[in-house]
């Protein structure tokens, strides 16, 4: 039976959309507490997400059911809907920081003189449009975006390489375990990407070989994030915690940029294109779950409502951004860990004994 997504698209999904949201303010937020050990905090997140990925892929190998079907089978429809609703809430909270950093980036760096709400309005139109689509649109976007992400990263990292002082990472672990863990905790809003795979369950064919491919592509994407974090700190060192928009800054110190001009914006625009889709992923999955919860056929209404809620929070509460950001970093991350790590890693337990060896359809 033909599935909605190809394994290739799952692999490219990670490469295209996983690294791009983690290069705006995340490195500076972590380095405020972990300093030169920022890469360790990132690595902890990567490893924990890897466990989630392995757990989900392992479950996928043993069943053709979707995550929602598994929840309904085990807990019944009501509890399944409650869990789905918790995920809707998770996605709505998760997208706040990412959308805001994208908005601030666009307004302050691309439109420096008169940042206005209007400039970012097109994003919400694109958001409604994408959230209205089926899951396979993500696969198609991944097919295109992975190249843009890769080109963007290669360009930015190669331009910034000459300014990287790797010795600045020393001494390793000097900031103490507590600060490193604090860094890991603060970064949770940007990580937990493997949770998307929960909702891809049953929508792609997989086996052991394909699982390895997916894991390798995930690790490849994470490698870009870790390298970016290392480059970021080694370039900005003691002022890393103040560099909110690492994406724009990391490559511009090289002599060639001074002489030729900001051609690194080619790479930045490539990454920004992928980021638009990546930032829309949480609302996309929130819409998908809401449609399942309410059995709604009217996709436009659901996507408009979800985007509308995000629009209100992001645009109308701009003046309270700092307070909301603090609230998310200090209080919501525990919830994020529960939804993006604890629940997904328990997925194999949802399989019933007989079901574990159910033959899969081709």
């Amino acid at each position, binding site marked *: 039976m033909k599935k909605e997504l190809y394994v290739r698209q799952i692999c490219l999904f990670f490469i295209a959309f996983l690294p791009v949201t983690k290069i705006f303010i995340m490195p500076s937020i972590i380095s405020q507490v972990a300093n030169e050990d920022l890469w360790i905090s990132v690595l902890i997140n990567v490893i924990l997400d890897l466990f989630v990925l392995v757990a989900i892929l392992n479950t996928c190998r043993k069943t053709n059911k979707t995550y929602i079907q598994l929840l309904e089978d085990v807990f019944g429809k009501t509890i399944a809907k409650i869990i789905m609703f918790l995920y809707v809430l998770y996605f709505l909270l998760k997208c706040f920081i990412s959308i805001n950093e994208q908005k601030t980036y*666009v307004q*302050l*760096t*691309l*439109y*420096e*003189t*008169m940042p206005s709400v*209007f*400039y970012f309005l*097109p*994003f919400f*139109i*694109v958001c409604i*449009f994408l959230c209205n689509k089926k899951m396979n649109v993500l696969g198609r976007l991944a097919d295109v975006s992975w190249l843009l992400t890769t080109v963007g990263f290669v360009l930015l990292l190669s331009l910034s390489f000459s300014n990287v002082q790797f*010795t*600045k990472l*020393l*001494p390793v672990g*000097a900031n103490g375990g507590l600060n490193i863990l604090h860094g890991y905790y603060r970064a949770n809003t940007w990580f937990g990407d493997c949770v998307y795979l929960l909702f891809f369950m049953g929508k792609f064919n997989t086996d052991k070989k394909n699982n390895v491919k997916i894991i390798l592509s995930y690790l490849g994407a994470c490698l870009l994030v870790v390298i970016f974090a290392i480059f970021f700190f080694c*370039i*900005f*060192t*003691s*002022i890393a915690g*103040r560099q909110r*928009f690492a994406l724009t*800054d990391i490559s*511009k*110190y090289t*002599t060639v*940029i*001074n*002489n030729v001009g900001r051609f690194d914006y080619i790479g930045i*625009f490539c990454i*920004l*294109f992928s980021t*638009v889709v990546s930032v829309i992923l949480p609302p996309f999955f929130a819409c998908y779950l809401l449609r399942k919860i309410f059995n709604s056929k009217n996709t436009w209404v659901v996507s408009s409502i979800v985007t509308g809620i995000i629009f209100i929070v992001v645009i109308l509460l701009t003046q309270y951004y700092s307070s909301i950001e603090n609230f998310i970093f200090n209080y919501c991350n525990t919830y994020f860990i529960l939804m993006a790590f604890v629940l997904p890693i328990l997925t194999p337990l949802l399989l019933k004994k007989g079901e574990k060896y159910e033959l899969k359809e081709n």
Partner: protein
Amino acid sequence: MNLKKTKFIMICCVFITLLFFSNDFGIINIEKTAIVTALAIDIEKEDYVVSAQIAVPEATDTNSENQKALITGKDKTIAGAIRNIGNLSGWYPKLAFCNLMIFGKEVANENIMKVLDYFATTLRIQDSAVVVLAEDKAREILETASPLDNISSFALQKILLKETGFDRDVSTTDVRAFCAGYYSKNSSSVMPIIKLLTETSKGQEKGNSSSSSNSSNTGQNGGSSGGNGATSSNKGDTLYDATTTALFLGGKKVGELNTTQTNAFNFIMTDSKESTIKINGVGRDKINYLLNIKRSNPKRVLTIENGRLNLEFSLDLFCKIVDKTSMESNQNVEVLPLPLLVKEMAEESIKNSIIDLIEIEKSTGCDFLKIKDTLYQNFYDFYPTFKDNYLELLDYTVKVNVSGQK
């Protein structure tokens, strides 16, 4: 119908996305936008005076027009002064292309970070902009013009951001590097000092350099190239010397490195390939040599022994003779072996300069050699013990090896 609707929506989305990325929503009237190429910051009676050099195409036609492209704003804060530039002129000062910031000498007498921090945190200006210190008023530098560039900031940038093949005689730093130094463990940063070389001072400079070259065997007159012009400073007769370096500790200027010391500083902190060394008055015939560095390998090793810090600087240079003032053979100078005496004089001269640097670091407390950083990175366990008195407990050895064609 549905297909048409979807296509229409898709086209709209693509169009909007294009606008979103291409800045077409930007509503600043380009005719009212002043592209600021450099800023000069001075302090006058507790007010910050910011002068912006603006690149207006017409202004580059003649030197006298060049002066008119300078607009000054004054206020109690830097941001206020920049805002006043716009308010007074009606032109929006766009700082995204500002690649140079010049600070007046009064700014360096206070904590310079009071000024620089604004530029480091605002997104209006690139923190890759080069920062320099003026010998006197910063504005004076922007008012000048060089024989080849009517806009002084462009001329200065050519000196500060040299292409490969030029001498590494300037300790160039930008906003990010300066701030990173200030907020680092040692709170130390460096910044080139810009000296104006007009017709009169050029004459003096030549005199000075010839006399100094007799006493000191290495040294360079970087940042200047020939040119005859009119007498006033804005008629294109000014050249700039950026070969001296100001040392900052906690944002305040605490010392200076002269040309020779700046060279030595660049030798040990960066790759000085393609830079040159002058060795003058060699032997009985007083032959002068110009050596070109083909390979540079600076190293420093910090160790701790018996409660003291030992710093070993080693510099390995492979040089070729570019020119010499004797004609004893008709061979190409580049294939000539490096005479032993020249090698020894070069080694001695560079070694003395490096020793000078360490002594300056000890006397000023400005850790421009990044010894404290090295201590933190390599001996973290000992860092609390040495962090406050590392300069007093510092012993050092300097090894310089100059090799050449054999």
